[in-house]
Each structure stands twice: as structure tokens, then as C-alpha cells.
């Protein structure tokens, strides 16, 4: 039996090379692992080792030959020491290849139940705490970890009382070690636990972003669907007040960029509770962006029942005719204030609270813009490649013929957040800036 030795590819990009030197001669015995030859590529000279065993019967390409294509037979082995070498086969064609290239599936449109029962007034802080407590009572695999979440009761008091109710096993103070405990949560989730990871603020998640994206978001895909990662990463996001550049960062577009994540950013207490409960029950990694300024604000919300708000659904929080304004988190408050100001000037604004940033509820937004024909996007983060950029792309693709004016973005300005009070005010969106933008798309500026 003879076996052809083929010119090997020695790097991901090599197509041909030079046989620099043969280290075995015809008649030599060859054992697995013996160096047969030296091959020069455009990058390096490398040794080629034998895989099969036998006697070198013939050298087909003499040393010094250049431009030898990968997979050309370069020598022949004789002997029975080796199993039949695999034949180089062209990869089989994919079975039943679809005629059209695959498209990203549209996210299923979740259904939100109308609530008609009694209501209660509650702060966002209490709503978040209740959401965690209810889910921890419901599912023993859910636990909370983060800096100061247990004994200190939460740096922003979101986890107040949880240690007392659930104990140290399930409410865990971590060292200040974001990358470490984020990776630890991912591993725990691979084994079926459902961690809630609190970042004291999302600014510190940047320490852990490799674990969030490379480990939490991508592993399900890379494992062919085997390794789900049901972790909720939550904490305050964006600017608080006068905490300057490193502590005022909005991560909405950063995380919304990544397939494998869901990204949620509620405004009201009811949505904070309902969406956090949905996030904890979701089998996927969910980024849950809160806002420090909202924690103490009160909202009327459902008082009874298992209040769940589905991920992936925006909400029209004020109906209007002349212009659509989208916002999320604290910016919804400013958008609503702007709508009041606009109403006084005879402009009827429709305000949409996006609530979920990935998967985006394009249907609700596009339908609104088709009605109003004008669009303003509001976000606190930077403009470049931001959420507004994405929304305007959606408008170009799905509502182009319906637009009566170029869409406008109101964003945080393209600078690291300054500390000085006056400069910080200049940087952040405000109700007045949103109202001005809405007037400009209505040609009323």
C-alpha cells in the first residue's frame, strides 16, 4: 500500500510554499512525528512532520521547488504501518440549501396584558426590590450578587431587606472584582443557576465587558445551542449628577450592538418591576439598564397579581398627531415634558417609551412615524453609532416615503462628561432641547 504525502497548509491563509529541504531520503523508515521536510511560506520556515508510518518510497517534488500548491502530492510512503489516509474530499454541499440567503428572523411580537385592577404608588427603587424578592421566592435557583448588595443593603438601597429574607447563600456581597464575579455568574448560569448580577453602576461593567459579550452572549451560539446563560446584569446606567466622565456613561448602544443579548431600559416603576421579573425569567443574558435619578421617583402601578411586562415591546405613553418622539429611561420624563411644552404651541407629539432596546419593537415605532411623518429620537448617550442612529436607519428602510422632514437626534453631546455644572447641563438632553428638535422637524423652529 502506498500513501501520498501532500503539500500541507501551515497557516490559515497559506495557498502555496517552497520545499526548502528534504530531511528524509528515499528508502528511509518514517515514524509518526518524524520531521520530513522544511517548507518555506511567505511568513516563516516550518517543519513538516509525518503522520503516517512507512518507508519513503519516492520524492515527487525535489527540494528547492517554489510555488508548490497546497495539497499537491510531494512524496510517497510505502508500507502497512498506517491506516488508510483520509482522501482529500471537497466539502459536501450543504443539504437543501435555501434559494434565498437566510435572513434574520423578526422578533416574535410579545403580547402585553392590559391591567385593570387596583393600583398603588411606588418608587422605582421599591419596584425593583419587589421584583427581585418575588422572583427569588418563586425560584430557588435565582440569587443576587454584587458589591454591597447584602449587608450594606445595596449602594443605592435596591436590595433593601433581601439579605434578611433570603440569607447569605442567596444574597452575596462580592469583592470589588467585576470581571471575576461576572465570569463566575456566567459559569454558575452554565450549570443552571439564575444569577442577578448588580453592577454598582454600569460604568464598572466595562471591566467585565469581555465576560458579558464573549462568554455570556456568544456561548449559546458557539456551543450549537447547548449552553444557555440566564443571567440578569443590572444597575444604574448613564449620568447621575456631577459625577463626571468615568461615572456618567450610557451603555445602551454598546450592549444593544451585540447579538446574544437582550437589552432593557425602563422608565416607570411598573415597567421596572414587570420588565425585571421578565428578565429574571428569561433564559438568555439580559442587560437591565436602570437610572439613579429615577430610583426615588414614584409612579402609579398595578397593585395585584404577577405583574410581568414582556421584553421587546415599546409603549406609546402619550398619543399625538404631528411628531413621534422616542426615548427610554429618564429621557422619557423629558420627552413627556417636551410634549407638554409643544402642546402649548399647538404641536401634538406622540411619545414612545422604547423600554426594550434589543430586540427593538420597530413595528410600534414605524407605525407611529407613518402616522405623524416626523421623527425625533432622544437618548442620553453619545450620538455616534448610537440608538438614534439605529432608529433613523430603521426609518430610512421602513418609513422613508412617509417622512416629511429629515429625522433628528437629541443625544448627549459628543464629549466625555464634564464635571462643571454648567458644562454638564450643556452636554445632557433636556425637555427644551427635545421641544426645539420637535419644532424643527415640524418646520416651526
Amino acid at each position, binding site marked *: 500500500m502506498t500513501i501520498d504525502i501532500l503539500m*500541507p497548509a501551515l497557516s490559515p491563509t497559506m495557498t502555496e510554499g517552497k520545499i526548502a529541504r528534504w530531511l528524509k531520503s528515499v528508502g528511509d523508515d518514517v515514524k509518526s512525528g518524524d520531521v520530513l521536510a522544511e517548507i518555506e511560506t511567505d511568513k516563516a520556515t516550518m517543519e513538516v512532520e509525518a503522520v503516517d508510518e512507512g518507508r519513503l518510497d519516492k520524492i515527487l517534488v525535489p527540494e528547492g521547488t517554489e510555488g508548490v500548491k497546497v495539497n499537491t502530492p510531494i512524496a510517497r510512503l510505502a508500507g502497512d504501518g498506517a491506516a488508510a489516509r483520509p482522501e482529500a474530499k471537497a466539502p459536501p454541499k450543504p443539504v437543501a440549501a435555501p434559494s434565498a440567503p437566510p435572513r434574520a428572523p423578526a422578533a416574535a411580537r410579545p403580547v402585553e396584558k392590559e391591567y385593570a385592577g387596583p393600583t398603588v404608588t411606588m418608587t422605582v427603587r421599591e419596584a425593583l426590590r419587589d421584583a427581585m424578592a418575588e422572583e427569588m421566592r418563586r425560584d430557588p435557583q435565582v440569587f443576587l450578587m454584587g458589591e454591597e448588595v447584602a449587608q450594606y443593603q445595596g449602594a443605592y438601597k435596591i436590595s433593601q431587606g433581601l439579605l434578611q429574607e433570603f440569607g447569605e447563600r442567596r444574597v452575596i456581597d462580592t469583592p470589588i472584582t467585576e470581571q471575576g464575579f461576572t465570569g463566575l455568574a456566567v*459559569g454558575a448560569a452554565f450549570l443552571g443557576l439564575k444569577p442577578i448580577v448588580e453592577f454598582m453602576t454600569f460604568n464598572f461593567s466595562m471591566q467585565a465587558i469581555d465576560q458579558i459579550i464573549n462568554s455570556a452572549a456568544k456561548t449559546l451560539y458557539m456551543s450549537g445551542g447547548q449552553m444557555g446563560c440566564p443571567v440578569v446584569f443590572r444597575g444604574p446606567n448613564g449620568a447621575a449628577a456631577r459625577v463626571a466622565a468615568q461615572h456618567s456613561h450610557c451603555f445602551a448602544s454598546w450592549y444593544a450592538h451585540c447579538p446574544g443579548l437582550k437589552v432593557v431600559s425602563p422608565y416607570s416603576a411598573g415597567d421596572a418591576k414587570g420588565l425585571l421579573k421578565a428578565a429574571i425569567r428569561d433564559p438568555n443574558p439580559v442587560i437591565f439598564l436602570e437610572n439613579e435619578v429615577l430610583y426615588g421617583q414614584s409612579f402609579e402601578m398595578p397593585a395585584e397579581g404577577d405583574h410581568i411586562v414582556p421584553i421587546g415591546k415599546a409603549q406609546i405613553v402619550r398619543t399625538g398627531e404631528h411628531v413621534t418622539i422616542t426615548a427610554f429611561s429618564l429621557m422619557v420624563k423629558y420627552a413627556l415634558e417636551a410634549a407638554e411644552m409643544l402642546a402649548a404651541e399647538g404641536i401634538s407629539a406622540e411619545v414612545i417609551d422604547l423600554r426594550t432596546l434589543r430586540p427593538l419593537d420597530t413595528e410600534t415605532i414605524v407605525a407611529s412615524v407613518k402616522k405623524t411623518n416626523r421623527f425625533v429620537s432622544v437618548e442620553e448617550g453619545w450620538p455616534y453609532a448610537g440608538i438614534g442612529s439605529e432608529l433613523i436607519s430603521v426609518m430610512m428602510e421602513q418609513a422613508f416615503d412617509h417622512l416629511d422632514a429629515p429625522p433628528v437626534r437629541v443625544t448627549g453631546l459628543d464629549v466625555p462628561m464634564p464635571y462643571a455644572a454648567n458644562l454638564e447641563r450643556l452636554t445632557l438632553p433636556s425637555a427644551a432641547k427635545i421641544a426645539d428638535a420637535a419644532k424643527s422637524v415640524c418646520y416651526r423652529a
Partner: protein
Amino acid sequence: MPKTKKGERGGEVKSAPAGELLKYYRDMLLIRRFEERAGQLYGMGLIGGFCHLYIGQEAVVVGMQATITPDDAVITSYRDHGHMLACGMDPRGVMAELTGRIGGYSKGKGGSMHMFSRQKNFFGGHGIVGAQVPIGTGLAFAHRYNGHRRVSLTYLGDGAVNQGQVYESFNMAALWKLPAIYIIENNRYGMGTSVERAAAGPALAERGSSYGIPGEQVDGMDVLAVKEAGGRAVAHAKAGNGPTILEVMTYRFRGHSMSDPAKYRPKEEVDKMRTERDPINQVRDLLVAQGTTEDDLKKIDREIRDIVADAADFAQTSPEPPESTLYTDILVGA
């Protein structure tokens, strides 16, 4: 206080019963032949991208695997083919993942560096140096949370040991007494940089000493020494005493990846390790000394060759993933 055993030889074990040795011989030979075939398929252009072979390091995973049960968890970095075979994953599924086919463990979506088996408690296969260490610590955390008397084996290289997140993990594992065993596979080179040029301080086994984690240096070319040290670490963890660091002194006979010209280490060093310290030959010698015949060994060699040839054949005939799978497995339930 942490105790570090100096020197290359891990313990006093000289031999073991023939049945046990035969298993190690077989398991190590499967990895060796599998990797040789993977190298060949790479050379033929059937495996793409990065491909890191485990040849020379077989005694590490085979020795450690002998200390755990199927319920324990295993995680490693991207030089992972040997770990998967040692965990009992099907060579067909591993090889078909290398060739990017639907029959691979990740349906062709992961490749050499990203493979998993939930069924075999193998948690990857991670391409980012050091990232598997907190995750492996989380596996240990989950065992503890669930009240299971199980351990997590987290393998890392001598290069990864300089990553910050490794120490974040050591800290939490020691703080919470997690049943985590960190196996530093010291093959002397992080890609092309020798340990001496990358790592300050004494033995890597002592890298956990400031956390009170016991460390031990083990001869990684001796499967029995690995098994003995691994057994101590597993017993320590299962008794609730927390993590252990094993610095396993090993050597890769091949380059860092397939495209490694290996100019950073002298050829004589490689040759010397291959001829004097080959982990498979060491076990083979023990078996022969105990009376195992050449014929018996040849029979095993042939069985292994058949398994590997079958895996290679499967990996070439399994179809590429259908295009309809492009958007599946991004989210659960979507």
C-alpha cells in the same frame, strides 16, 4: 500554609496495576493519534482557522480525569481537543467540529477553540486567554450552591496565569472555599514567550499563596504523578477545604498553533523532551516491564487508529451546516 513541592517529580508513585495503566495508555494514545490526524487534516485545508494541538501534554488531562466523576465539571482554554476526548466526548463529534460540519459538537458554529458538551459536563473550549478561569470558578460556585459534593477542574496555561481575572477568581474561590481546582499546564511557552520572560516571581504553583491556596508542582509528563496530586486536590475540595493550584510541568511537542515556526525554542530541547519524557512511552515502558506484550500494545494501537480514521472519515462526510442554521442558537426560545 501552602506547600509547594519543588522539582519535576511529583510523587513517589512508580507504577500502577496493569489494567489502570492500559487505560491511561489507551486514552493518551487516542489524544496523540487524534491530534496527529487533526494536524494532517489542517494541512489538507479541511480544518481552518486556528488549531492548537495537545501533543506532548496528554498525561495532564488523562491523569486529572482519573481523579473525578462524570458529575464533576471541566473547563479549559483553546488547546482543548485532549480535554474533550478525556471527558469521553465522541471523537467523531470533535473532529467534525474541527472541519466545521453539522455533525460537530457545536453544529459547526464553534470550531477548534469553542466546543462544549453539556452531557459530559465539559464547559469549553474558550478562546480568550484566562476567561475560562472565572467561569470555572462559577461552576464550582454552582456545585456548592446546589449542595452537591462535586468539583470543577479549571485548566489554564502558563500564559493565562498572568491575567488579572485569574487572581480575582483565586480570591473568590479561597474566600468562599469553593471546590475549584486550578490546573496550570505549564508547557514553558505562552505562544512564543517563555515563562521566564513573562512571569515574575517563583513557581507558578505559588501564585495562590497570598490567598492561602495550597499549590503543588507536579511532573506533567508522568500520568501517575498527575493522578496522585490531582487526587489530593479533589479530596481537599470535596472535604470542603476549598481550592488547590496544581502547576503541572509539561511540554508541547508541536508549535503553539499550526502556523508556528517554533524559532523561540531550540530544536534540541524539543528533541530531548520527545525522546526522554514522552508521557505515552513512559507508560508503555511500565506496561512492558509488567509483562504486557508488544502484540497486546499493537492491538491497542490498531484500535485507536481505527477510531481516529473513523472520526476523520465522519468529519469529512458530515455535511456543512445548512444555511438555515445561521440565525439559530443566538437566543434561547427565539
